């Protein structure tokens, strides 16, 4: 009964063409389309205008269900441990995830209707009717699938760090990740925090560069604490 109340409230927000920032918990509707990638393993047709479909981007941490988030971590093959100790990342601890979510200053989640997630070949003749369907289908974080996520930890004064930005593989390379990062930075700058950092691995570096991140202007070195593991020999540099 509480859940239904929240969903109805969110619908109202959407009809009002939501405001963002300033701490208002809101959901925003965005349209994305699949781009034609040059080297794609999936059979994408060569139609230049791929149909748009809607995704919902939310800054409300209450929309995130820890269990679905854990599944998202698994789908994206993402681990909460930055320095991998094992070949396969272990499943995320739900209790810890809940704690982490409740103490993250910014939590951004992206939802999408299930049929678009698995949609490989874009519709042709049915494009107009599916668009209308998309317009009429109400927002529902409980019904739609969690497809993207990002969060930031901050001291709400000077600094912030972005962690765990991920989008499920079938919807990658469509600008969703960039949207998530942009949303996070926008919320942070609205709170007057401009010192935003992001820890990224080798393959994420290009992504963050495209989002407007760069190496530290003060040339600081990123260092992480390495728990002394007697079985592993300590490397020099």
């Amino acid at each position: 009964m509480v859940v239904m109340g929240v969903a109805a409230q969110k619908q109202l927000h959407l009809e009002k063409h939501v405001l963002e920032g300033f701490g208002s918990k809101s959901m925003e509707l965005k349209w994305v389309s699949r781009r034609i990638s040059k080297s794609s393993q999936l059979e994408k047709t060569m139609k230049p205008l791929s149909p748009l479909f809607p995704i919902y981007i939310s800054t409300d941490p209450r929309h995130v269900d820890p269990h679905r988030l854990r599944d998202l971590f698994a789908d994206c093959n993402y681990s909460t441990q930055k320095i991998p100790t094992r070949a396969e990342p272990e499943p995320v601890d739900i209790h810890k995830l809940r704690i982490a979510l409740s103490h993250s200053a910014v939590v951004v989640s992206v939802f999408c209707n299930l049929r678009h997630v698995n949609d490989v070949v874009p519709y042709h003749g049915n494009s107009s009717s599916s668009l209308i369907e998309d317009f009429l289908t109400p927002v529902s974080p409980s019904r739609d699938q969690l497809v993207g996520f990002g969060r930031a930890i901050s001291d709400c004064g000077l600094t912030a760090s972005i962690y765990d930005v991920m989008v499920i593989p079938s919807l990658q390379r469509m600008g969703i990740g960039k949207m998530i990062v942009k949303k996070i930075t926008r919320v942070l700058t609205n709170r007057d925090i401009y010192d935003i950092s992001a820890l990224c691995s080798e393959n994420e570096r290009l992504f963050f560069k495209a989002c407007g991140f760069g190496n530290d202007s003060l040339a600081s070195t990123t260092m992480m604490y390495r728990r002394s593991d007697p079985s592993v020999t300590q490397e020099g540099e």
Partner: protein
Amino acid sequence: MLTLNLSAISSSFSVVPYANYPLSIQTQLLFRSNLNYSFATTATRKFKSFQLKAGFWESIKSGLMKNNSMQVIDPPLDEEDEEPLPQEFVLVEKTEPDGTIEQIIFSSGGDIDVYDLQALCDKVGWPRRPLSKLAAALKNSYIVASLHSIRKSPGSEGNEQKRLIGMARATSDHAFNATIWDVLVDPSYQGQGLGKALIEKLIRALLQRDIGNITLFADSQVVEFYRNLGFEADPEGIKGMFWYPNH
């Protein structure tokens, strides 16, 4: 939102995790309309103890039955000690030739005066930052470790002189990641192992909470200092990037 496999008993408490209200307030709202205040408080007390008992038996039951589908909802967060217990102890004690005793006190309680901190930052030569932001940052940091020096003159007055001589703070999501910022020690107290002690205590407190990823951004002249404390530069190719709006 909440997991669907809650048993009937614990579902009555299911509103708690996301509502984030202490349970006593919730039950008062429930009872306020028809009962007078004294009755409501006894009702809340009974309700609260009942809820705790339910949680206890739930956890025993779920352990015995090895049925992991039963979700045990922990009592609200004011029962858990989420924040690390603040420590305060004497790190070093020195007696000077004229009899004054100087103690260096380590504290992780975060009780720092912003003006003292500003003065200390000036001493080490850091750029000035707005005081309100500093205060907010201190308040919202997970752990703020500080070193104060207390000098007691041998006279019977016992006037103590307390000065802030070092600080380190860490922000965290309380579960997975932590970043250490703003490590500084008064130049006249440097070279005594105080910075090392600060960081070591900080790391120990974080590891006790099972926070696996501890990061920091080190200036070139202190990279070696942190390396000796167990930090590794750019491990596995992980680097920190910073946001520049007009790239």
